[in-house]
């Protein structure tokens, strides 16, 4: 028998009202949890994919599209850039490292990327089975592709022309899988990696044998660039934009711009969740205030049994906090479950992976916020309980 038993007894006695208030608060907490988890994982994942890439050179068009297509492999490329110009940039003294990317084909919705071994090394990935590609028409597949399509080393497949699903097959140029990458939690998990020459080869044949592609005509889609010095940020983008057919896009700037666009929607959702929590607090207040009226004899009686006014106050505050605590726990569980469900449905759409089986430190703040709502809602009822006039209440009873 203590304050907790008493509070639990009261909550049980008003099971329906308790359940409704807990649920209302849980919905608010769940919505915020979903946002926290999704945004955190999205930002983390996008940050990881873009890490170490200071600039992307691509064909002229939308810089955001260049970033989305060349780093995250979510959008279609803006076009191709001449290999000769890409090589010029690689030789610039402010450039430390460049990785060429040749896009254009897909296999069952997964992109085929022509590149060099630096691309794999950049993300710190290693083959879990087999080896990296050496010759044209050898392919290394990402962990997620291997798992989803059940492909292993030795399998052969035919790429489809075009980034969208509907494209003609390169029927006469099959790739053979020579390696499967270990999961790296990066964009590599969802890519088919081949040499740049393989992509050229496939498209040479596609264009017909008589139009032989010369060295000058060779193209890549984009060039990932790492700066040699921080000073490059002032020089290199302007150099690329002014001296070539290419444009330079900064991943940091473009993703920040993207998140500020998404952010409007997130803010609306977050505001909605806060309104939910606020109304939960109001509903909690009404419930506790009504309970106080039902309980005025109980409170007076407890005083006759020796309870101090502050014990009664603590009882009401504890009850508010207890309700809020239940709401927070249920809300967190619900939020994680919803995130996992969302993650599963996104997985089917081959978008960025989101899971509910993780947590972020901000959830602790969320618990604190819920408890604060509970205690705040109980404040006035607690004060009324504190001020109970025993003799007057009992005389009226």
């Amino acid at each position, binding site marked *: *028998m*203590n304050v907790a*038993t*008493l509070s639990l*007894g*009261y909550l*049980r*006695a008003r099971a329906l009202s308790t359940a409704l208030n807990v649920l209302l608060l849980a919905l608010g907490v769940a919505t915020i949890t979903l946002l926290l988890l999704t945004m955190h994982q999205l930002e983390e994942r996008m940050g990881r994919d873009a890490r170490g890439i200071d600039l992307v050179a691509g064909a002229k068009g939308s810089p955001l599209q260049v970033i989305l297509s060349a780093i995250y492999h979510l959008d279609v490329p803006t076009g191709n850039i001449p290999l000769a110009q890409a090589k010029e940039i690689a030789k610039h003294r402010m450039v430390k490292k460049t990785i060429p990317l040749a896009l254009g084909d897909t296999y069952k919705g997964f992109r085929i990327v022509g590149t060099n071994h630096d691309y794999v090394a950049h993300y710190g990935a290693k083959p879990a089975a087999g080896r990296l590609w050496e010759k044209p028409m050898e392919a290394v597949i990402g962990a997620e592709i291997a798992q989803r399509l059940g492909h292993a080393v030795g399998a052969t497949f035919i790429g489809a022309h075009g980034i969208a699903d509907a494209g003609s097959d390169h029927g006469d140029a099959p790739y053979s899988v020579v390696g499967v990458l270990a999961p790296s939690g990066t964009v590599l998990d969802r890519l088919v990696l081949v040499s740049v020459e393989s992509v050229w080869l496939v498209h040479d044949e596609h264009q017909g044998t008589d139009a032989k592609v010369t060295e000058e005509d060779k193209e890549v889609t984009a060039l990932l660039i790492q700066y040699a010095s921080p000073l490059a940020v002032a020089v290199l983008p302007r150099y690329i934009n002014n001296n070539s057919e290419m444009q330079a896009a900064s991943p940091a700037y473009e993703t920040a711009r993207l998140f500020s666009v998404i952010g409007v929607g997130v803010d609306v959702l977050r505001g909605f969740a806060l309104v939910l929590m606020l109304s939960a607090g109001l509903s909690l207040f009404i419930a506790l205030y009504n309970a106080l009226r039902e309980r005025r*004899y*109980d409170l*007076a*009686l*407890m*005083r*006759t*049994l*020796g*309870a*101090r*006014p502050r*014990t009664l106050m603590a009882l009401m505050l504890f009850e508010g906090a207890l309700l809020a605590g239940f709401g927070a726990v249920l809300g967190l569980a619900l939020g994680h479950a919803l995130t996992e469900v969302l993650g599963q449905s996104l997985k089917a759409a081959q978008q960025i992976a989101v899971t509910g089986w993780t947590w972020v430190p901000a959830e602790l703040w969320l618990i604190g916020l819920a408890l604060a709502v509970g205690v705040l809602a109980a404040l006035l009822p607690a004060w009324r309980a504190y001020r109970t006039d*025993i*003799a007057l209440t*009992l*005389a009226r*009873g």
Partner: protein
Amino acid sequence: MFEIRELKHAYDSTEVLSVSSWQVEQGSQWLVLGPSGSGKTTLLHVLAGILKPTAGSVRVAGQDIGALSENELDCFRGRHIGLVLQRLHLMASLTVMDNLLLAQYLAGLPRDRARASQVLAGLDIGERVAAYPHELSFGQAQRVAVARAVVNRPKLLLADEPTSNLDDERCMQALGLLQDQARACNATLVIATHDQRIKARMPNQYTIGIHQ
């Protein structure tokens, strides 16, 4: 025992209670008689330390309760005074056992299940410890209320109209319970009532309100 001197109480400057002197031995049993509105309940509330009188002093078990601070008075009330009200006011959300444990907890005493069980058994409701108040008959509920009042072995057991609205048989049963339980823990028993039926069973009677 308790001792009252020059006690006066007024609500909004209307005097509702005036007791010049009343002294009672420890363990004795008293009936406070008087018509409705004569101040019986007020006197009981003053004795219980839940109402501060306008003037005068009250000593209960050798302690001047007017000299106690708020906190000390709450503690004193919890440990030394048992109160049985006309409306029983059992805690509906707690079991019979928890109602008794609550009295121990709020008095700042250790929770003693053995003592609670013993009191309930002494009142023939030992088998209803796990029941909730709404599952009890009125007679059982009244026994629980008495048990709760005596579980901390009070020095003073106060009952406000414990027998009104009861038929003759139940009236005598309720009176017997209070007398037995008061005797069992050597508590002074004071029953405030306008119920004439129990006069014959209570030799010590104090009538208030007639001198006004």
